[in-house]
């Protein structure tokens, strides 16, 4: 049949087709070469990695939300690059009553993006809202040092006017603490204490964080929010610190690390950090360190740890928890993670007060097995089925797989690994904490208190459900101690109690931030709190 067809005609079809395709491809290549993907002056493009669960800074609890909020808002004070508190909304302040009273003088020229002035009433409203039990903000504990704050948040006190802070007039804000706290000023630089506008929130309800509704007082304003895709910030000409150099910031949400890295390589992103930096590439760049000006790294005040839900068997037994803590070789974990992490035995990281160095003798599989046997599971027999929850992110998968392997080899127990998307993971932790979970905590301020009070009984982020009044007292005593040497000792004691005796958590390693910055970007400064401020960044030509 096919021989009937003359070769001539098929050839003509083939020829036409081939010609068209060649033309098409050539055009594509030429057009592509002329259209070079490159940067836009005055615009910073970066990757948030995930959709921020909430931009309401009374409810936000994770780094993606903070990254956005830190650039659209300022509080009473603001962090400098070396993490001290500089005046922001508050031009000056006085501390009196042996560190129990703070009087802030609000600057007259700090404006919201709709032109209204920032007043002390905005702070009063925001702080009340943060502590309001109806808001259910996980960061309510932040203000527990304030008089009556704890009682109010627990619902025992209903009258908000009895709270220990007050707006005396539009420019004066006074705070009374129930006991002196050396770190209190730091708290005013962090987002839960930022001011909020009562009229806006009451008018728009749950939708007040949408662009167009949201007003803010920081260097940038929220211009556009394409959910699951990108957030666009624009410079705020009304910012009291002067209009920032950047005109626009585009924060994309690319969850895939490799895609994000490819974007950076292809000049579609100007700055990436760990969220977009696959481990294998990090390794390469660390080796090239001196020869690659784009690469920077800094150790963070951020700790990776395993948490137990101490209400769920078999982790209600201290022996089991200790067994697991002793069976995990943190040094090996750091070798596997390859970002430059350091292993830790205790919660407080270097160089904070109360830091205890890593003790490699605490890794003791033989002892761990003894503990496990004493709990009723000799050689891992009859160990119940448990699962370890971790968020769906590349580096965490590696960590938990390694831990699963360690536990198998050293204790002969098997744990299942379950992963969830970041937001679901956060919700699960809060509402139905799993038997074991992998978590991380980055310091909110450069003081050991931020780590230690995480596991006090009433902290909204304590997902272990471990509540120990002895520990609470130890931390409380350390928090109001003035003498730093004594303070360090007190914190050390609490740390030892937490990580060696009760073991509701297993601290694993401190984290490192590895970044790549394109040569046309200047002004990005890394800090140990992993906060990213872009008000002094510029993107040239």
């Amino acid at each position: 049949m096919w021989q009937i067809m003359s070769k001539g005609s098929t050839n003509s079809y083939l020829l036409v087709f081939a010609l068209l395709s060649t033309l098409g491809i050539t055009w594509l290549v030429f057009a592509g070469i002329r259209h070079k993907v490159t940067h836009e002056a005055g615009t910073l493009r970066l990757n948030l990695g995930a959709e921020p669960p909430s931009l309401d800074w009374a409810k936000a609890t994770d780094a993606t939300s903070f990254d956005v909020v830190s650039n659209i808002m300022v509080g009473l004070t603001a962090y400098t690059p070396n993490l001290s508190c500089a005046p922001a909304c508050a031009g000056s302040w006085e501390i009196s009553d042996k560190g129990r009273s703070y009087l802030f003088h609000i600057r007259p020229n700090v404006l919201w993006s709709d032109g209204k002035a920032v007043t002390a009433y905005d702070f009063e409203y925001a702080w009340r809202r943060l502590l309001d039990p109806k808001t259910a903000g996980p960061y309510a504990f932040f203000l527990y040092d304030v008089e009556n704050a704890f009682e109010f948040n627990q619902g025992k006190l209903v009258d908000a006017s009895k709270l220990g802070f007050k707006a005396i007039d539009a420019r004066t804000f006074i705070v009374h603490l129930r006991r002196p706290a050396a770190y209190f000023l730091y708290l005013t630089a962090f987002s839960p204490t930022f001011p909020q506008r009562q009229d806006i929130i009451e008018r728009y309800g749950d939708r007040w964080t949408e662009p167009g509704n949201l007003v803010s007082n920081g260097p940038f304003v929220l211009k556009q929010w394409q959910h699951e895709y990108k957030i666009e910030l624009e410079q705020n000409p009304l910012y009291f610190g002067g209009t920032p150099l950047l005109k626009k910031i585009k924060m994309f949400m690319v969850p895939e690390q490799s895609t994000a890295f490819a974007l950076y390589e292809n000049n579609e992103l100007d700055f990436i950090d760990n969220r977009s930096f696959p481990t294998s590439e990090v390794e390469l760049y660390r080796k090239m360190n001196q020869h690659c000006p784009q690469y920077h790294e800094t150790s963070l005040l951020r700790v990776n740890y395993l948490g137990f839900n101490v209400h769920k068997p078999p982790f209600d037994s201290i022996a089991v928890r200790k067994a697991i803590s002793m069976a995990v070789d943190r040094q090996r974990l750091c070798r596997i993670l390859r970002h430059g992490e350091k292993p830790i035995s205790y919660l407080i990281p270097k160089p904070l007060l109360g830091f205890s160095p890593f003790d490699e003798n605490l890794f003791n599989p033989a002892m761990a097995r003894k503990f496990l046997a004493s709990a009723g599971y000799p050689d891992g027999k009859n160990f119940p089925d448990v699962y370890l929850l971790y968020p769906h992110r590349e580096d965490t998968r590696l960590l938990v797989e390694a831990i699963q392997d360690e536990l198998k080899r050293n204790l002969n127990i098997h744990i299942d690994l379950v992963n969830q998307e970041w937001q679901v993971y956060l919700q699960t932790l809060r509402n139905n904490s799993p038997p074991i979970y992998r978590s991380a905590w980055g310091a909110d301020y450069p003081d050991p208190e931020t780590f230690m009070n995480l596991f006090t009984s009433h902290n909204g982020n304590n997902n272990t459900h471990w509540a120990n009044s002895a520990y609470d007292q130890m931390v409380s005593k350390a928090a109001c101690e003035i003498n730093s040497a004594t303070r360090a000792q007190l914190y050390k004691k609490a740390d030892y109690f937490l990580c060696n005796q009760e073991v509701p958590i297993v601290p694993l390693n401190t984290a490192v931030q590895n970044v790549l910055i394109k040569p046309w970007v200047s002004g990005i400064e890394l800090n140990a709190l992993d906060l990213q401020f872009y008000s002094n960044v510029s993107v040239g030509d």
Partner: protein
Amino acid sequence: MFRLVVRRILLMLPLLWLIATATFLLMRLLPGGPFDAEKNLPPEIMANLKAKYHLDRPLLEQYGYYLQRLVKGDLGMSYKYLDRSVNDILSNAFPVSLVLGTVALILAISVGMPLGVVAATRRGTIVDALCMAVSTIGVSLPGFVMGALLIFVFGIWLKILPVALWESGWHIILPAITLACGPTAYIARLTRVSILQVFEMDWVRTARIKGQSYQQTIIKHVLRNALIPIVTVFGPLTAIIITGSFVVEYIYAIPGMGRFFVTAVSNRDYDLVVGTTLIFAVLLIVANTLVDIAYHMLDPRIQVDTL
């Protein structure tokens, strides 16, 4: 003809109703959602949810409310995005997926059909084997591997195309190519087989014997009848493109419906899941209906076996 259209549309309705019901039931089964008793949400939020979803009423009543909502065209509220309506979200995501899918479809047809034609007319030769090899490769690699290769070659090595995101027209190219690989292979193989089958038909031989020129034969009869199976598989093709879009939109960080579906399921965002499922179902059913209509228009006589 008109009766046919009406009949097919009427058939669509019970199908959609079945899917809506199935999704409703599936929603209730999914663990970890607002309907999961294990969760202890703050009382404020629980009260909110109860009011919205009528959770305290018997199941049948809830079902009634649900259907009422759907009939009005209201796909509900997103659980995750703070009261943003599903209609709102999908109306932004749908055009993105539509553009991507259409471009991929056009690519697939314009590359797949000629491949199939060439392979069929050169049956048994190396050209045939080569064309089929190329198209089989398209279906033999997982989508994300293909995507990785394309990103690497065009974005990182040659640096001539954007590798991800959805910011300009150029951003359509790589994802569309990745998405088109499977369908291209599918169409190529299908075209080849159906052309070969048509060649065997007596009436084609008759036409040749009668003296019509070769080109006329090809154009008038063979190609036209080879179109029939393409039209026929337009339905499954739409399905392939929809499913392909999940992976492609994920790799290339494109804010389309496929990506929303995957994240909605992970987030247990029920109304969004139901909304996307229903829209996909509607798309498929519409595609299949159009296929039936076009099929009848082309030629009701020819029977073509589905592959």
